[in-house]
């Protein structure tokens, strides 16, 4: 007799419905499985047969044949166990066929009959929902994660016995409604109010958050580059439901969701220069997301930016443009999202003190040039804001100036984001940093005075067309923060301050 049970295979974060066809007939006792299976699936017959025996069910010598269709998709992982077991139980007459209509089964079976949790439950449940399935059977350990998905009947099972009981009792379950609070105020133990002084850096990060601009922090060791970068996520707009799903999805396939805790904060991923290319971009035989995808919708912080090898930095170019990464393998290729804000930090020179007033730099000009030349122009093109961080003076610590809370900064950021969203409604983008040159021309409208100012600045400060475009983008974000329709001179003049560029680096050279 043939029985058909549905489950899901993942390729990256995209799922495909897999039909598990189990046929049991009389013949020489034998168990055969086909359908381009990875090692862990081939082993599943051992797990299933032992688990069925340990659950008190007799599996007398039969010829068992299992096919996982479509056969051209490569299948990996242990989440197919449950579906195969159900197919078998139907054949044995323990479960009724009618009770599993429009159901998906996901889970790994252990020898004692318990159902173990698996990675990737969230994208699987989303696939089930997309394909119109009514019910999913999942391991109890994955329950919280599955509950993010609306409109599915979610049944959690502890063991094979529990599963049989639940299927046969044909219980009716209500459709799940996600309890995730949208736009909830997250709890952070860090805040912008922790930072004394650094007014310029704080303002710059406000612009970064408002326009999703990438940012390069340059400063001597210990001036607070990391501290500033870490606080950026506290002023980003609050997470929407879709964004929570998106972030949790990536973590789900990596198995980063511990004890069903849903990820409801924007990620802050810190990488240092000795990270491998595979861990950075994503990789493996069965491609898994890397740091750049983990930082999706959050912040990727690259400390000691100039120490990263060329290969990683040049890969960054395409990533910053496309917001996705495609990992190609012989049998399949996987696409992961990686739309993050890049915060790169570096010292101004190898010794770290060039331009500092507190300590003298000991590097030669050639040494500094070599250090900086590692970051190519095309990479710098894509980093809109460049910022010098200076040391905090004691007078700044001991000041009456009110330290602004992240909460208040975020309010302004959210208004600016709203303005951008409605402006770009027909453009397919959401933030100023994504504008191409055509869109810059269309949306960065200058009044006459600021046009003149920009012309003067262009000549005086030796801009090139790329800095010109970057400045316009930043000025647009500043205008949005001030809720101005048209970019005026003050926006342009402020935007220019967020360019370090060539004036920074010419120590001792004659042309200074």
């Amino acid at each position, binding site marked *: 007799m043939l029985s058909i049970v549905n489950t899901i295979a993942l390729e990256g974060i995209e799922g495909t419905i897999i039909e598990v066809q189990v046929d049991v007939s009389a013949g020489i006792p034998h168990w055969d499985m086909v359908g381009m299976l990875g090692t862990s699936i081939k082993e599943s017959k051992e797990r299933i047969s032992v688990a069925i025996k340990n659950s008190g069910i007799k599996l007398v010598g039969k010829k068992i044949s299992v096919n996982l269709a479509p056969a051209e998709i490569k299948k990996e992982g242990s989440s197919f166990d449950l579906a195969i077991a159900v197919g078998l139980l139907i054949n044995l007459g323990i479960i009724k066929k009618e009770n599993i209509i429009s159901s998906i089964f996901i889970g790994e079976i252990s020898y004692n009959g318990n159902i173990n949790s698996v990675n990737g439950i969230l994208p699987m449940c989303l696939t089930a929902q997309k394909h119109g399935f009514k019910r999913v059977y999942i391991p109890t350990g994955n329950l919280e994660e599955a509950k993010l998905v609306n409109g599915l009947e979610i049944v959690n099972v502890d063991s094979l016995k529990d599963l049989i009981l639940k299927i046969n009792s044909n219980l009716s379950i209500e459709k799940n409604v996600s309890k995730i609070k949208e736009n909830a105020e997250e709890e952070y133990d860090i805040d912008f109010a922790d930072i004394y002084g650094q007014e310029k850096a704080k303002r710059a990060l406000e612009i970064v958050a408002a326009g999703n601009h990438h940012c390069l922090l340059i400063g001597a060791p210990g001036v607070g580059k990391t501290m500033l970068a870490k606080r950026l996520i506290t002023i980003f707009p609050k997470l929407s439901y879709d964004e929570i799903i998106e972030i949790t999805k990536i973590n789900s396939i990596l198995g980063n969701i511990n004890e069903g805790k849903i990820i409801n904060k924007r990620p802050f991923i810190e990488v240092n220069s000795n990270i491998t290319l595979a861990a950075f971009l994503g990789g493996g035989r069965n491609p898994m997301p890397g740091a750049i995808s983990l930082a999706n919708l959050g912040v990727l912080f690259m400390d000691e930016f100039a120490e990263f090898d060329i290969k990683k930095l040049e890969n960054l170019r395409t990533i910053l443009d496309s917001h996705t990464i495609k990992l190609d393998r012989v049998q399949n290729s996987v696409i992961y999202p990686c739309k993050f804000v890049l915060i790169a930090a570096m010292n101004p020179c190898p010794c770290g003190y060039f331009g500092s*007033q507190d300590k003298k730099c000991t590097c030669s000009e050639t040494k500094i040039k070599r250090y900086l030349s590692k970051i190519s122009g095309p990479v710098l093109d894509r980093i809109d804001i460049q910022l010098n961080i200076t040391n905090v003076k004691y007078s700044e610590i001991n000041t009456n100036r009110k330290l602004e809370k992240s909460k208040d900064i975020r309010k302004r950021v959210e208004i600016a984001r709203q303005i951008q969203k409605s402006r770009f409604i027909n453009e397919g983008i959401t933030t100023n940093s994504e504008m191409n040159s055509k869109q810059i021309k269309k949306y960065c409208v200058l009044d006459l005075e600021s046009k003149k100012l920009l012309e003067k600045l262009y000549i005086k400060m030796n801009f090139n067309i790329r800095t010109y475009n970057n400045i316009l983008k930043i000025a647009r974000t500043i205008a949005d923060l001030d809720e101005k329709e048209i970019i005026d001179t003050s926006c342009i003049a402020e935007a*220019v301050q967020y360019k370090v560029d060539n004036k920074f680096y010419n120590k001792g050279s004659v042309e200074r």
Partner: protein
Amino acid sequence: MLNKTAIAIVGSRNCSEYGWMQAKKFSNALSKNGICIISGLAIGIDSIAHSSAMSHKGKTIAVLGSGFNNIYPKENKRLYEKILENDGCVISEYPPDTKVNTKYFPKRNEIISALALGVLVVEAKYRSGSTITANSAFKQGKKVFAIPSNIDSKLGIGTNKLIQKGAKLVTNIQDILKEININKCSDIEQDWKYENKMVPEKYKLVYSIIGNMPIDINTICNRTELPIQDVSEQLTMLELNEYIRVLPGDMFVKV
């Protein structure tokens, strides 16, 4: 060329902005008055002394502490070629392939002072190459001039000590010209006036905070108690209209 009236300008390699400006000013003005500038082709004060002498078609002499095939530091290879192109002179007492060696430098410094009528020390740390040059000038009976520095500055210790030892404190080039018995001085007066620029009213507050010592934007913001966006805006406008200048590390000084 070696018979020309010549003044040596020496100073720290790792000079401050102040030293840089003064070296430029003095070298410029001296060469406008037909005086040849001698220095040691090092980076910092030496480089600016050579190049600003040449900027007004003045003559300059560089004395090396290595052979001609090993210009030190490498960055100044171009400056070396420029001096030769501009009919300048480069002197070395070593065979062409001699590698640079710090023990040759004191010897080189003695040659610098010997070739000049006087030595102008712009910025020097305590016991540095520049003070060696000045001391050999004392021994050779040459004039020593020093530009005074901020007494808190490390780079001022050497020059201020030299003044105590009898070097002449100079504040403009006439101080130098008088000592070497040149009485006519071509019109360069305006460079030395401490002019107060007319800054538009709305930028006055920020401008008043910026002085000759480099200051960073956060301090300006803190002292003026203005919002940071206004300070940023005004700094750009001040820079554009050349009231202030930006230095490496985002520091601002008056022009």
